[in-house]
């Protein structure tokens, strides 16, 4: 994109050179020094060629050359006073290079953005006024136009370059996502299937094979979470899908049940629920016995989202909360309650020896 802009500067310079050439060739007989007029035209042509060649590559687009560009334009502009008659100039005759002097302003804008463009325009505008020797209506108009061109072109150049960078980032991101999807398909078709098979058959065999099966099952669910790429999808408007936060908590002893669609919650609420659920599951592992299984149910009734965590371990009878407190269960429950209170929700713990223990977490939507 930068290359195209520099090419546009070169084309502008050539077109304005042609315009200046027409005027100089046509009117040089009326100049005080006709041959000098043609010499200035030759200098302009040569400088046009030099800059077109230099700006074509990134190595030529150096501040020194751009400053020289402005300097040459100023000198050519001021040479009008030496070449043309004072009467012509005072009558408002065009300068020798006419619009050619706007080319270095464009070069400044492309190289330095709005600030560069305005700085270049200010120098050239000062030279335009100096050439005329007075601030007349036409020199003032030319100066303002130069400043506008320098500022506006600089702005759009910067804007365009930023847009290009953003587009490039998006394209890279998309390429990364599709590569990840390709890998996910490959993994799904091979590794995951084998791990699932090992996990299923190993448990049938029992003994040491069952331990291997458990490991394979854990790796399967970890790998599946990794390649399913829930994290790739950016959250929609600060909302998170509670389902994809909780699903990774599932495993050989934990079943997570959710609605089919996304359960969208505000970022903090979703994270608080997920953290509290994780804590409740840790609690099950610690207190409900090594063989206890747990089920996590996510329900969304529109007004609120409820997460229930039930285990089939040895629950405790109601009225024996002191015992539960001694066992440390209530302490953890208090921390869960705190997490939920922060996001306007609440938690309650129910337990009976027959049904195990159930923690219910509820967060209302505003």
């Amino acid at each position: 994109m930068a290359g195209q802009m520099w090419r546009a500067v070169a084309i502008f310079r050539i077109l304005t050179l042609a315009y200046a050439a027409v005027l100089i060739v046509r009117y040089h007989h009326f100049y005080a020094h006709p041959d000098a007029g043609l010499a200035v035209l030759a200098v302009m042509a040569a400088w046009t060629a030099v800059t077109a060649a230099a700006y074509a590559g990134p190595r030529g687009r150096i501040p020194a050359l751009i400053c020289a560009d402005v300097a040459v334009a100023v000198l050519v502009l001021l040479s009008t006073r030496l070449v043309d008659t004072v009467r012509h100039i005072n009558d408002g005759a065009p300068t020798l290079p006419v619009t050619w002097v706007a080319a270095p302003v464009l070069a400044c804008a492309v190289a330095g953005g709005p600030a560069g463009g305005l700085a270049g325009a200010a120098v050239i505008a000062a030279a335009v006024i100096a050439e005329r020797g007075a601030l007349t209506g036409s020199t003032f108009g030319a100066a303002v136009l130069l400043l506008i061109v320098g500022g506006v072109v600089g702005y759009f150049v910067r804007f365009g370059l930023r847009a290009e960078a953003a587009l490039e980032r998006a394209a890279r991101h998309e390429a990364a996502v599709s590569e990840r999807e390709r890998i996910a398909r490959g993994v799904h078709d091979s590794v995951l299937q084998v791990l699932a098979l090992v996990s299923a058959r190993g448990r049938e065999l029992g003994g040491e094979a069952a331990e291997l099966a458990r490991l394979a099952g854990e790796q399967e669910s970890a790998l599946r979470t990794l390649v399913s790429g829930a994290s790739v999808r950016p959250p929609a408007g600060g909302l998170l899908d509670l389902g994809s936060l909780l699903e990774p908590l599932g495993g050989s002893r934990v079943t997570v049940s959710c609605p089919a669609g996304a359960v969208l919650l505000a970022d903090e609420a979703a994270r608080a629920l997920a953290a509290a659920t994780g804590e409740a599951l840790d609690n099950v592992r610690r207190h409900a016995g090594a063989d206890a299984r747990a089920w996590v149910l996510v329900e969304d009734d529109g007004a609120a989202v409820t997460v229930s965590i039930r285990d089939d371990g040895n629950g405790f009878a109601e009225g024996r909360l002191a015992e539960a407190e001694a066992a440390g269960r209530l302490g953890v429950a208090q921390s869960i309650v705190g997490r939920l209170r922060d996001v306007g929700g609440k938690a309650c713990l129910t337990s009976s020896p027959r049904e195990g223990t159930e923690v219910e977490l509820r967060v209302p939507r505003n």
Partner: protein
Amino acid sequence: MCPGTDEPAPGGRSPGAAARVLVVDDHPMWRQSVAASLEEAGCPVAGTAGDGVQALRVAAATRPEVVLLDLHLPDLSGAEVIRRLLAADAEIRIVVLSASGERQDVLDAMTAGATGYLVKSAQFSEMLEAVRAAAAGKAVFTPGLAGLVLGEYRRLAAGARGDPSQAGGAGGALSAAAAAVPTPRLTERETEVLRLVAKGMTYPQIASLLVLSPRTVQNHVQNTLIKLQLHNKAQLVRYAMEQGMG
């Protein structure tokens, strides 16, 4: 052994005989292993297939009672395979196997007419039990499926509240057709039972908690699925009619 029944429900066919199973999975190793295990357990395998089109062809040729269908197929969606299998043989029973993280696919498959759902990491004994139950015409519910079904009823109820055309107010053929498909609802008892299933309780546990017979619990659970399947079918018919009339 893999008998078709211990308590044949209406619609379960060939009671007493072993159910013949078609195993559909795109992974050859999984397919062969499952087929071998089924044969070992005394469950005849009618055939195996690696994609949806092949599954339909093999099903037409071998007429299995039960299809063990992986949802991840290279050509057709699981729901599409199920619709076509049922169109060719309304009595066929389909048990869906799926990896976790494909919740919408599972729900689509179940509403399309599958009678059972297992996660792929289920133990083989569970799979065998599921095939047996499906052959007997029973729905095979897992906690995950109960969660999906609960969510779907809530989604439908929210849609009915939020969409005025569902209330049947506006005139016109299309909205009349839309109003002709009422939104299915869960009874309080059904909701209660489904929530307990989703929280991992077994039918006998639920039965004793709610003071019901296990058979009644089973019926409640099964009804929730049948209502969704009927609704799905009615919607498809409505859609076809709208296309025809449009």
